[in-house]
């Protein structure tokens, strides 16, 4: 067994290896596919037959070395047209972490792709070409990522070899980026000089950037703090279904499962944020009744504590009317159920959203009808470094617009502010007729620094 694999196995055996979700963003020709290919290649995540194939295709194209960008080619149309159509998911791992990378194409439908990738990301990997620096697309992508509250941002200054590894060029870009991040309210950011083609500072440290003493891209990703992903946020638990087994037979595969009788009643779901202990008082939303946690059950045995990300079954000490769509929440600052939903919506469909449009709102595990009461303007992402996005008055949202919307709901939803709760502050808008996903919504104030608290109503 190789030392790497051994380290990997032992980290895994101790349950220490964690999962980190990344999303990439960049504009055309900044080398994003090459960077992703380089990360896969240098972490030994590419196997021989895939690499053989890439080498063959590279030779056919008249290249004298393997074009790592080809590792991320997906569909036939993409290969034929040399474009990237849709978000693709890539996987690589080191002894410390497994990475799920949402590779988001930068040019076609960048809003849709960046919003999709950012919605689940812990880290956004943003690329710029060292020869061009921070450009309009960089500002837009960063604004979208911060709107979606991605906790960490890393700016990869790629093609540093094409500016002769110049510290001055790098510093200018880093200064621009720091200003941009500060004005948008980005939490944690980092800038790294890279040549994805040559491999400098991607996985191995480069001797050609002696003036840079920060981490490599992979080093950053391996050590970035992921503890507040599961952090001390308030407890939220959307109920997926009520568990009421008809029989009490013990399953042969679940030897360590607790005994269950015919009166068993539990609530299955995934802890969306925070944590809960046996004995904790919770409030059942939207009804508002209170109860204590009597038990946290799993087929692997009972637990004392369940934390963000865990799928469990909760039992309550009171016989309450709880069904799918309910949210169990901590009694400290629970969200007030409301039929008046005010939030920021990224519009992802060809058909526009206008006052009077009827849609479905999916939030947590509930789905409710809604009608658009007002569209209060769209975010103008054409802003300069040092300033912030402003608002433009409008009465409708078009494809790729990000706007302020007010919806009247058919049923009250206990919806949090997205600024504090990325899970229970998020919602999607769905077409009532054909089921298409129309928009991505974030409840409460716009989770991004903008020119004014909100747009002036058109």
């Amino acid at each position: 067994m190789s030392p790497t694999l051994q380290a990997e196995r032992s980290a895994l055996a101790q349950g220490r290896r964690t999962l980190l979700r990344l999303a990439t963003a960049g504009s055309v020709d900044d080398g994003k596919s090459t960077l992703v290919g380089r990360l896969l290649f240098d972490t030994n995540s590419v196997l021989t037959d895939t690499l053989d194939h890439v080498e063959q295709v590279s030779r056919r194209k008249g290249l004298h070395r393997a074009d790592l960008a080809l590792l991320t080619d997906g569909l036939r149309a993409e290969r034929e047209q040399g474009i990237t159509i849709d978000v693709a998911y890539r996987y690589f791992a080191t002894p410390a972490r497994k990475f799920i990378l949402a590779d988001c194409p930068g040019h076609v439908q960048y809003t849709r792709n960046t919003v999709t990738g950012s919605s689940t990301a812990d880290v956004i990997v943003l690329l710029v070409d060292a020869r061009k620096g921070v450009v309009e697309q960089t500002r837009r992508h960063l604004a979208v990522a911060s709107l979606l509250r991605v906790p960490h941002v890393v700016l990869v200054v790629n093609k540093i070899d094409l500016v002769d590894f110049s510290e001055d060029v790098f510093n200018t870009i880093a200064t621009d980026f720091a200003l941009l991040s500060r004005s948008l309210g980005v939490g944690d950011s980092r800038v790294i000089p890279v040549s994805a083609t040559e491999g400098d500072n991607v996985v191995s440290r480069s001797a050609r950037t002696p003036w840079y003493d920060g981490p490599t891209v992979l080093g950053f990703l391996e050590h970035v703090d992921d503890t507040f992903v599961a952090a001390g946020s308030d407890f939220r638990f959307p109920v997926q279904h009520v568990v009421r087994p008809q029989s009490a037979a013990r399953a042969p595969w679940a030897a360590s499962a607790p005994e269950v009788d015919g009166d068993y009643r539990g609530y299955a779901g995934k802890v969306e944020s925070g944590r809960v202990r046996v004995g904790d008082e919770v409030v059942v939303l939207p009804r508002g009744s209170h109860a204590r946690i009597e038990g946290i059950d799993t087929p692997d045995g009972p637990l004392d504590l369940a934390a963000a990300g865990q799928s469990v079954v909760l039992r309550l000490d009171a016989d309450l009317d709880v069904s799918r769509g309910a949210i169990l929440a901590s009694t400290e600052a629970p969200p007030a159920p409301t039929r008046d939903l005010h939030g920021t919506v990224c519009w992802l469909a060809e058909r526009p959203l206008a006052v009077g449009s009827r849609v479905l709102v999916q939030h947590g595990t509930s789905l409710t009808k809604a009608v658009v009461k007002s569209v209060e303007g769209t975010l103008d992402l054409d802003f300069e470094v040092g300033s912030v996005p402003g608002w433009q008055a409008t009465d409708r949202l078009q494809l790729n617009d990000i706007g302020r919307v007010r919806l009247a709901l058919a049923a009250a939803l206990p919806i949090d502010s997205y600024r504090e709760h990325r899970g229970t502050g998020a919602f999607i808008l769905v077409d009532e007729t054909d089921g298409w996903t129309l928009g991505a919504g974030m409840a409460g104030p716009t989770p991004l620094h903008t020119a004014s608290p909100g747009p002036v109503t058109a």
Partner: protein
Amino acid sequence: MTANDARRAGTPVRPEHGLRPLSELQALESESIHILREVAATFARPVMLFSGGKDSVVMLHLAAKAFWPAPVPFPLLHVDTGHNFPEVLSYRDEAVAFYGAELKVASVQDYLDDGRLRERPDNQRNPLQTVPLLDAITEGKHDAVFGGGRRDEERARAKERVFSMRDEFGQWDPRNQRPELWSLYNGRHLPGEHVRVFPLSNWTELDVWDYIEAEKIALPSIYYAHERDVVLRDGMWVAITPVTPARDGDSVEHRSVRYRTVGDMSCTAAVLSSASTVHDVITEVGLSQLTERGATRADDRLSEAAMEDRKREGYF
């Protein structure tokens, strides 16, 4: 200062001492269970494809955990090509009983016998599965079909959603996929359409093996090293079976082999291996230099876009 006050003040909140993020396998298991529960709660008639292969066994194990202490609330469906390994078929029936599930079988052989399908010139039966599969989905009025596909398997799959919409011909349109945001899975569809759901989307081959080891999940015996008569064809070790007999000029060898996937005998090849335990397999998989589909699946070698074509046609 409470957690909320701290966040509003812009200070990152530190979890209390000792609380760590979930491990990789815990996080993957939990995500899959969440997906399985969402489907059971929002679709009228889900069905789970089950071949007895390792990915489908892991998926069944996760389903049993997701709905415990109640039984798995939907049936399993096996599309039997008639060329399955006998070891896998007997394992299939044992596993179904062990997890207390219900199994339906759609048979390619029935379709060949009554003329609804004809054998292909290359004798491969995997491409023939599509018609019986779509018929079984229609007849069972299934609106959601779970598959064990993973995004790391093949490049077309890297682009597929967890909830993948299919029209009445079962076709996948890669250029017209719904955005999938947060963990809000949207399964709304028109009558006649159905949704393929992939709970293992974010698992890699190594994750599947690690989980099999951690959860002590039993597998068909042919996943582990055993002695067999094999012949080397196109760089792949093909077992000598009634479906794939020796040809003139073959030099048949008796070797220790195992299978990385257990599809149809006519198109699944073995790899040379001495891995006789899960641990040995994990070591081998971790070090192996070939992707599992590339190493052993003749059906994916038909063309550069073989998987993409079959997915468009309604294959998983």
